[in-house]
């Protein structure tokens, strides 16, 4: 089969040099993926991607890093086989970049092994914490956005990037609550992260929309405030309505189609930033592969429209 276009640029450790952040990130752009849409690789679809005769028509695939942390295990072996044919983006959900206790060394080692094994086109994590003491909570928990937190997250990103020998993208989380201690906006916090560590940003537009609804963040202002060149990837996903009648909240479920509002936000973002590698994130109540491909095709049409304009 034709191997999809894959850039292995981004393996070099360039985040330590002193050139401006945007210059450094530009060197890490994944050739050929800017204008393309990927989907998440889910266990139920793995065999389709291993099929030599009719490989599904997707340019690249994103995996949840921690699902492949057992080197030599069945999942890891399948991923290595799939990675020979599709570019892979490694998306971590549990590193806990917001932990003042520091990172779990074994976690970082396992992430580094995975990155070595599949040579991903992109590596990303979240602006969140999920560990405290000896317990891992399996949830992206919110951080007070202060100078202290900024120091903690920067130190953890530096350590991650040093260990992996490459820069990572940091994703904006879905917001449900804010802390009174916060002294800066999320957009400012993320911008500072890129300036201090050389990391890029993974812009999750569903999360941004949810934070807009739940926390009153002005999404247009947010998009105007973050550095365009730092955006290395975009996520699109579905959400559900929760909370109560008096206090409605939007809940990030990754278990539904992308909503019309998020599609509109996507068009707005692309008009500002230009096309970016975009990924359809649907990891609970996973539908058929065909449904995911249809969502991907819709995103691709929007990219093509922006490119044609």
């Amino acid at each position, binding site marked *: 089969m034709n191997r999809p276009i894959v850039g292995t640029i981004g393996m070099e450790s360039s985040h330590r040099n002193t050139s401006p952040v945007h210059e450094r990130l530009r060197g890490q752009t994944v050739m050929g993926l800017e204008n393309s849409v990927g989907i998440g690789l889910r266990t139920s679809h793995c065999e389709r991607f291993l099929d030599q005769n009719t490989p599904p028509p997707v340019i690249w695939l994103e995996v949840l890093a*921690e*699902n492949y*942390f*057992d*080197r*030599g*295990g*069945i*999942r890891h*072996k*399948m991923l290595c086989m799939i990675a020979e044919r599709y570019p892979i983006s490694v998306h971590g*959900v*549990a*590193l*806990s970049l*917001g*932990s*003042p*206790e520091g990172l*779990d060394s*074994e*976690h970082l080692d*396992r992430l580094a092994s995975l990155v070595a094994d599949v040579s991903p086109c992109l590596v990303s994590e979240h602006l969140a*914490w*999920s*560990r*405290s*003491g*000896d*317990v*891992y*909570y*399996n*949830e992206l*928990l*919110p*951080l*007070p956005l*202060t*100078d*202290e*937190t900024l*120091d*903690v997250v920067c130190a953890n990103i530096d350590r991650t990037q040093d260990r992996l020998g490459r820069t990572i993208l940091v994703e904006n989380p879905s917001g*449900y*609550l804010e*802390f*009174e*201690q916060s002294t800066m906006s999320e957009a400012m916090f993320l911008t500072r992260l890129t300036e201090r560590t050389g990391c890029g940003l993974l812009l999750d537009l569903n999360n941004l929309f949810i934070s807009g609804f*739940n926390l009153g963040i002005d999404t247009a202002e947010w998009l105007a405030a973050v550095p365009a060149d730092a955006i290395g990837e975009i996520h699109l996903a579905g959400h559900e309505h*929760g*909370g*109560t009648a008096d*206090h409605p*909240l939007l*809940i990030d479920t990754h278990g539904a189609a992308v909503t019309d509002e998020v599609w509109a936000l996507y068009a707005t973002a692309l008009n500002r930033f230009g096309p970016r590698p975009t990924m359809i994130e649907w990891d609970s109540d996973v539908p058929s592969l065909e449904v995911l491909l249809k969502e991907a095709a819709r995103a691709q049409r929007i990219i093509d429209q922006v490119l044609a304009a």
Partner: protein
Amino acid sequence: MTPSRMLLQTQRSFAARLLEGKAKGTSPDELCVDALRFGVHAHNTRVSLRKAVENVYPVTRRLVGADFFTTMADQFVAHHPPSHGWLSAYGTDFADFVAQYRPAADLGYLADVARIEWARARAAKAPDAPGLDLTALARMDPSALEGLPLSLHVAASLVYSPFPAFDIWRAHQHNSGDDEQLAQIDLAIGPQTTLVSRPAALEVGVALLGPGDAAFLSALAEHSRFGAAYQAAVLEEADYDLASRLGDLVCMRALATFIA
């Protein structure tokens, strides 16, 4: 409080309430966060960890029903939360928890079925190491065979149960007609030893062992030498045919390679 301690303290207060499992509305007062909003995180935490347990133990869940399992798994999560961010290691002590879970006390086989399920998860995540090579064994000086330290393959586990745990596990692979199938299994037929292993790179195998195989592998698992393990097998099964049995066990990749 020094500034660097503030984030640590915030997270400790936050974390302390996440797994409490009380009614929605409990939030750490000292953080001044809205209870409803805190509840979203607490709910997500509990449900996602419970689902992680469910994913490993689908047959255990079928045997007790979704509601019973949810209550049991929620209690397990609250008392045994994971310590690492990769959840393939999570749930290793669930079978022990089930064994002492009082509401399930009359289901003596339940913990053993859970042990088979954990053994499957363990086999799936184990390294794909080569198994015993029979030709290497054949090349050995026969006088050295007796004292050969053979061991189980890194992906292989034995699950001994005083109940027909293998039959129960196998009868509940699908949702339909499970209750009838359980009714057809004679719980008094005696003990079963199940071998769970990784016969091929992308495959997990589950097999019921005969008494000779069970004795042979159990002895090896307890570090008996080849000769002593064979003697243990013959005690259980007088006509134990080692040559043919070894072939089957090697096909299941039950045994590790050895260093001669």
